[in-house]
C-alpha cells in the first residue's frame, strides 16, 4: 500500500512485504490451532471447488427444461443419484449448479453489507458530533427493524432478480458491523500515533484510510466471514419465499420449487433434504471459519 516505494527505496518495500508475509504466517499458525476452523476451511475448499468446476462437471445445460433427460419427480436412481425435479432435471446437477448462485449471492451481499457498515462506522467514529449521532440513530433504526421483514419488503417492491436479493440483504444487515467498527475506530483514534499523524498534518482522509482502516480490517474480515453464512441463509430464505429470480437455480430456489411442486406433502424427501443440508453445511463452514478468524484476530478474545 505504500505508494512511496520510489526507486532506491527497495529495502523498505521488501521489508514491508517480509513483515506482511511474517504476519500472515503467524496468522496461519494461530489459525491452525483452531480445529473447528480447519474443518470449516476444508469444507469451504471442497464446496468452492465444486462450484467453480460446475461448468465442466454438469454444464449450464443442466438448467434447461426443454432438454431435461428424466421424467417428473423420479426417485433416486443410478442415472439420477438424487432423483429429478418436476421438470425432469437431475437434482444432483441442479444442486451443484445452484452452489454457484448461492455462494456468489452470499459473498457479494456480505461484502456489500460489510462495506456499508465499515464506511458508516469509520465516519461516525472519526468525526463524532452530530454526524455520529445522526448515523448511529439510522443504524439503530436498522438494528431494531427485523432484517428479514425489511429484506422481504425490499425484494417485493423491486423486480425479481439476483441483484435485488444482493441489495436487499446488503442494505439490511450492515448495522452490526457499523456499531463494531465505530467502537474500534474510537479505540484506535485514542492511540498516541494518531495524534502524531494529526500533528504532522494528516487530514481526515489520511487518518481514516491509512491508520484507522488497516486497524479495523481484522475486525471487518472476521465480520465478513461470519456475515457470509448469514447472507447465504437470508438468500435461501428469500428464494424460498419466492422472492428470488425464478429463472436461476439456487438452493433456496430449489426448496421453493420443491414446495410449489407439493414435495412436502407427497413425501419426496430427496427433493427437499439435499438443498437444505447443503445450505446448512455451507453456513456452518463459514461460521466455523469466521469464529476461528475472530479468535485469532480479535485480541479481546485472547490468544490460545
Amino acid at each position: 500500500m505504500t505508494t512511496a516505494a520510489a526507486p532506491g527505496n527497495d529495502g523498505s518495500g521488501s521489508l514491508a512485504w517480509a513483515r506482511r508475509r511474517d504476519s500472515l504466517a503467524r496468522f496461519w499458525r494461530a489459525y491452525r490451532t483452531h480445529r473447528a476452523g480447519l474443518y470449516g476451511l476444508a469444507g469451504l475448499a471442497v464446496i468452492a471447488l465444486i462450484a467453480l468446476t460446475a461448468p465442466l462437471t454438469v454444464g449450464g445445460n443442466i438448467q434447461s427444461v426443454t432438454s431435461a433427460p428424466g421424467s417428473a419427480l423420479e426417485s433416486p436412481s443410478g442415472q439420477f443419484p438424487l432423483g429429478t425435479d418436476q421438470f425432469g432435471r437431475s437434482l444432483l446437477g441442479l444442486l451443484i449448479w445452484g452452489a454457484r448462485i448461492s455462494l456468489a449471492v452470499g459473498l457479494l451481499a456480505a461484502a456489500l453489507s460489510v462495506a456499508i457498515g465499515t464506511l458508516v462506522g469509520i465516519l461516525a467514529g472519526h468525526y463524532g458530533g452530530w454526524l455520529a449521532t445522526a448515523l448511529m440513530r439510522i443504524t439503530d433504526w436498522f438494528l431494531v427493524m427485523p432484517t428479514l421483514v425489511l429484506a422481504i419488503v425490499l425484494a417485493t417492491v423491486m423486480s425479481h432478480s439476483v441483484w435485488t436479493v444482493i441489495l436487499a440483504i446488503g442494505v439490511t444487515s450492515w448495522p452490526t458491523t457499523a456499531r463494531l467498527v465505530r467502537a474500534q475506530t474510537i479505540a484506535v483514534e485514542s492511540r498516541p500515533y494518531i495524534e502524531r499523524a494529526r500533528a504532522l498534518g494528516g487530514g481526515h482522509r489520511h487518518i481514516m484510510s491509512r491508520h484507522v482502516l488497516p486497524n479495523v480490517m481484522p475486525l471487518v474480515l472476521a465480520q465478513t466471514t461470519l456475515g457470509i453464512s448469514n447472507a447465504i441463509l437470508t438468500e435461501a430464505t428469500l428464494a424460498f419465499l419466492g422472492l428470488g429470480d425464478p429463472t436461476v437455480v439456487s438452493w433456496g430456489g430449489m426448496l421453493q420449487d420443491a414446495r410449489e411442486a407439493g414435495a412436502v406433502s407427497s413425501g419426496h424427501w430427496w427433493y427437499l433434504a439435499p438443498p437444505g443440508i447443503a445450505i446448512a453445511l455451507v453456513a456452518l463452514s463459514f461460521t466455523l471459519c469466521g469464529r476461528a478468524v475472530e479468535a485469532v484476530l480479535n485480541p479481546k478474545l485472547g490468544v490460545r
Partner: protein
Amino acid sequence: MARTVPSRNALRPPRPGRRVAIGAAAVALLATAVLPVRGAVADDSKGGEKVLTVAVSQSVDSLSPFLAQRVISTSVHRLMYEYLTDYDAGDGHAVPGLATAWNTSPDKLTWTYTIRRDAKWSDGRQVTADDAAWTFNKTMTDKGAATANGSFVANFKKVTAPGPTTLVVELKRPQATMTALDVPIVPRHVWEKVGDFTRFNNDRRFPVVGDGPFVLTDYKVDQYIKLRPNKTFWRGAPQFDELVFKYYKDNDAAVAALRKGEVSFVSNLTPAQASSLKSASHIKVNDAPGRRFFALAANPGAQSKDGTRFGDGNPALLDPRVRRALFASVDRTMLVDKVFQGHAVEGEGYIPPRFADYFWKPAAEQRIAYDPVEAAALLDAAGYRTGADGRRTGKDGRPLGLRLLCHAIDPNDKAVSKYLQEWWAKLGIGLTVDCVDNVTDPWMSGEYDLALDGYSVSPDPDYVLSIHTCAARPATPRATGQTDDFVCDRPFDELYAKQLAEYDTAKRADLVKRMESRLYDTGYINVMAYPNAVEAYRTDQIESITTMPEAAGNIYGQDGYWSWWSAVPASGSAAKPGGGPSAGVVLGIVAGAIVLAGAASFVVLRRRVDADDRE
C-alpha cells in the same frame, strides 16, 4: 366465471400476505407434522354435528354481492342467495331458481319472470318479485352498487314488479343472456338501510339474512367463513350441519390437513400431490376437465375508447407474422405433458371442450401447429433476421426482445415461462420474464408485451367473449375497463352483437364459434391448455358429492351451489383417520434432528468462545 373481473386475480387465486405467511407456515408445517392434531371432524367437539370443512387460500374481496368479484366470494354468494335461474348440474342449461318460469315478448324486448311462492328469507319473510326488482334497480341506478354486476344490467331499460310473483324486465336491445343473469337477489328490507354501497361489506352482523341453501353465520378475514344450512330452503335443506371454509395459505399444509382428516376437501392440487393422494386411504382424488383456459396474450397496442394509445407494448407484436411465429414455436403437447403432467388438455379454441355446445377447434389448415422451422421462416419474412450472435434483429437494427408478464405466486406460470424462454431463445428472440405479485397494475396500464392469461368460463359464454370487444376497453387510459387484452376487432364485435341478440340456441352457438375462429386468427389470445380441476376429498367424511357437470366435473368453484348443497355426510364420519407416521412426520423429525444438531454445535462453539473470553 362471469364475475371474476379482474380475472387475473380471481382465477389464479391471489394469496395476499402469503409471502410473510410462508415462513410461519413452514415452521408451522414442521410443528403440525410432528404434533398430534386434534380431530377436527366435529363429532367430538360439538356433540355429533357433522361439519364439512373446505380448505381455501384465496382472500375474500367483499361479502357484499354488489362488490364481490373473486371466486371465493361469489361461490359463497351462490350459497347465501338464490339467483333468478340456476345452471343445471348436468349440462349447464338454465333451470328454475327464484324464477319458476320465464317468457319473452314477441319483440324480444320484454322478459317476464314468475317468482316462486315457496321461498323465504332466513328471517321468516317471504321472498317476492319486489326484492328482485329492487336489487336490479339498485344496480342500475347506484354506480357504487354496479361494481360487480353492472355488466348484466347495462342493457336494461326498466325493471318492475307488478305483483309479488311477477317480475318484468324491459330491455333496450335483445339480450340472449336473460336466463344466465349471475346476480344474487338480496332482501330489500335489509339492504334498503345500507347507505354507501361501495363501503358496505356485509360482514359485520351475523347471521346474514339470505334465501340460499346456507346462511352465513360467521367470518374472520383469512381465517374462516362459516355457514349453517337453511332448513327452509325450497329445494331441500343441505345435510351437513355446518359448512366451514378454512384458510390454508400454504397448499402443502392443506394437503397435510386433509391426510389427517382436519379438512374434508382440498382443491388446486399439484400433480405430485394428486398422485400421492391417490394411494392414500379414505381419500378420493377428483381430476376433472376444468372450465379454465390458459393462454398466451399478446399486447395489441393498448388503446382506450377515446382513441388514446398508452402502455409500452412492443410494436413487433403488431405484425401478425411475429405473433404466429411465437405461437408456432410453443410445443403445447410438451406443456401438457411436463408442466401439467397430463392434468390438462391441449389448447385449441377459446372455450374449453367441456362446454360442448360452444367448443370450437381450428381446422387443419387454420391451425397454428407446433413448427419451429416455419416460425423461423415467418420471422425471416417479417424482416427479423438472425445476426452473428444468434439473436434476431429488426430492420431498425434493434435486437428482438420481448417481456412476459406472469404471476409470481403461480407455479404453472413460472414453469411455462421457463419453457417459452428456451423455445424462443432457439429462435433468436430474447425473453425477459417479469413474474410479479401484482400483475393487475402493469396489465391495466398496458405495460407488457406478452402475458400469461386465464379465465374461467361460465356455461353461458357471453362474458368471456365480451372482454375482447372494443366496448370493454377503458374509457380513458386512467379508467378501468372490463377488457382482458385491449383487443378491438370490428368483425369480432359485429359477431358479438349478433350472438347477443340471437335467442335461438343453435344459431347462437354457431355465431359464438365464428367468434372463436376470428379470435384465433387475430393471434392475440393463444390458448395453450385447458388445465384440469384437481381436487381431493375424504370419503370417510363425505359420502357423495355432486360434480358439475355431473359426469366429470369440478367440485370447488362451480356455477351453482350443487356440490356443497348435495354433499352427503359419511355414516361413520366420526371415524378417525388411521395410518402410521406420514412422510411429513419423518421429514419433520429429520429436520428437527438437523436443527438440534446445528444448535448443539453452536452451543459447543459458544462455550469455547466463552472459555476464550475467560482467559
